[in-house]
């Protein structure tokens, strides 16, 4: 449905070639995958035990294998996301009070701090891998429909679907406008001129989007829009989905047991 979410280099959606060899996880009911992923994230953030968290990361990695995520692009994405938490992980050992294990330029690192940093890193990556494997390979529109079938308010789902639909359109418009600016010799720098030009670019995109949304509304009214939308696809869960849900439940209970017993 949308190109941008797959086109932008950091996105996780698989390209056409990889989608043809259907992965096992891809064939499961989207609702089950979504629920399992949310529950897994909640359980992992409630855990504090190192063994349990390592197991959780293992489960995440295993799911990624099942989902047949492309190795190198996945690694690149994980590195990008991990660079976000680097600051936190690097400062934690030095800011948490506790037993000193080593010092670096007069800064003392505590054992508790190192463990806390490891905990944050493990949690973030475990959730990341499961997210990639379970939801990241879903079409955005399928995700919207799954949200609707899980009783998320209809207005929010439609906002989601509209956004997904038009991200692509306005990304292309943005690229066209940037090309036009480039053709006129625009090079982004750190100065007022750049900020003003990009500000005008955003403003023009907003102006065009408003005009476009009026046309969309007219087209919808023309087709008999009465304030309601209909989502037609019915999702069915089969034998395999029930087996997957059962295995997931056992795994989550197991994680909680390892973490708290």
């Amino acid at each position, binding site marked *: 449905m949308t190109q941008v979410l797959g086109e932008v280099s950091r996105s996780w959606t698989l390209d056409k070639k990889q989608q043809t060899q259907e992965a096992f996880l891809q064939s499961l009911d989207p609702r089950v995958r979504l629920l399992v992923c949310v529950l897994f994230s909640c359980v992992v953030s409630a855990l504090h035990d190192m063994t349990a968290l390592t197991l959780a990361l293992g489960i995440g990695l295993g799911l990624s294998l099942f989902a047949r995520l492309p190795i190198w692009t996945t690694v690149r994405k994980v590195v990008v996301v991990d660079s976000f*938490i680097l600051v936190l992980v690097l400062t934690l050992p030095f800011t948490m*009070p506790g037993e000193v294990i080593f010092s670096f330029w007069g800064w003392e690192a505590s054992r508790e701090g190192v463990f806390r940093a490891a905990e944050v890193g493990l949690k973030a990556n475990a959730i990341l891998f499961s*997210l990639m494997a379970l939801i990241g390979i879903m079409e*955005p529109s399928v995700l919207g429909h799954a949200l609707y079938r899980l009783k998320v308010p209809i207005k929010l789902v439609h906002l989601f679907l509209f956004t997904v639909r038009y991200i692509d359109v306005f990304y292309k418009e943005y690229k066209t406008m940037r090309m036009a600016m480039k053709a006129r010799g625009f090079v982004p720098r750190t100065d007022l001129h750049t900020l003003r030009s990009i500000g005008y*670019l955003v*403003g023009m995109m907003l102006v065009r989007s408003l005009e476009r949304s009026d046309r969309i509304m007219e087209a919808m009214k023309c087709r008999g829009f009465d304030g309601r939308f209909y989502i037609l696809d019915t999702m069915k869960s089969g034998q395999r989905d029930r087996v997957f849900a059962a295995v997931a439940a056992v795994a989550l209970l197991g994680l909680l047991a390892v973490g708290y017993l």
Partner: protein
Amino acid sequence: MHIVDGALSNPVLIGGGLLAASGVAYSLKKLEPEDLPRVGVLSAVFFVASLIHVPLGFSSVHLILNGLLGIILGWAAFPALAVALLLQAVFFGFGGLTVLGVNAVNIAFPAVLVYYLCRWGLSAEKHLLAKRVADGLFGVFFLLTIWAGFALYQLYQIEGGSWSVTVNSVSLILFAVVMAYGYFLYRRGTLSVAGFWGFLGGSLSIFLTAVMVAISLALSGEEFGKAAEFVIVAHFPVMAVEGLLTAATIQLITKVKPELLHAVR
């Protein structure tokens, strides 16, 4: 800007989730079905805008534009941002599922606040009053900064100088500098009155977001204190960038299509 999974404590996560859910619920109740395409299309534009990188010295920052989003969408900023954050979390991996609520509140709440603060200042009829209030608002911010600076200086004398205090004073000075630069541009005529309101909205929303991110980190544990301070300091360049950019956008909108400011009821 995004807090990742695993850092925050459970009470903060649950509290953020509840706040975000109630904000989204309230704004969805206000939202007419006829406005859905507008909000959806505008939220797509803001998603694309968040992919734009602006060079800043040796590095670059990506836009958030929650001030502009708040000014244009008002309360509808809540669901629009929730959707954008969900898409970013699921397809780009920025932020995560469990922190979705906290992130949504941290970004959307300043947007709604800015909506109430700047909305009437942007309307053209009360031009002179808008000017006066803009001047007054700037004065208030400046006095607050000076007062906070003095308070911190005294604290510094008592504590004997710790790292945290110096970082705080540096961040306050930067806040004052950013605000003064915007005011200078406005006085020189580069920014119109509406533009200055846009500047205030754009930079204030980033400041508030940074403060809220810092608060949610600090609430999660003593050990995040330094990281929380770092977040505030790191966002001052972003404040300047977003303030000036929002100012330019608002200036364009007020000239080209003023009805955009009243697009969503």
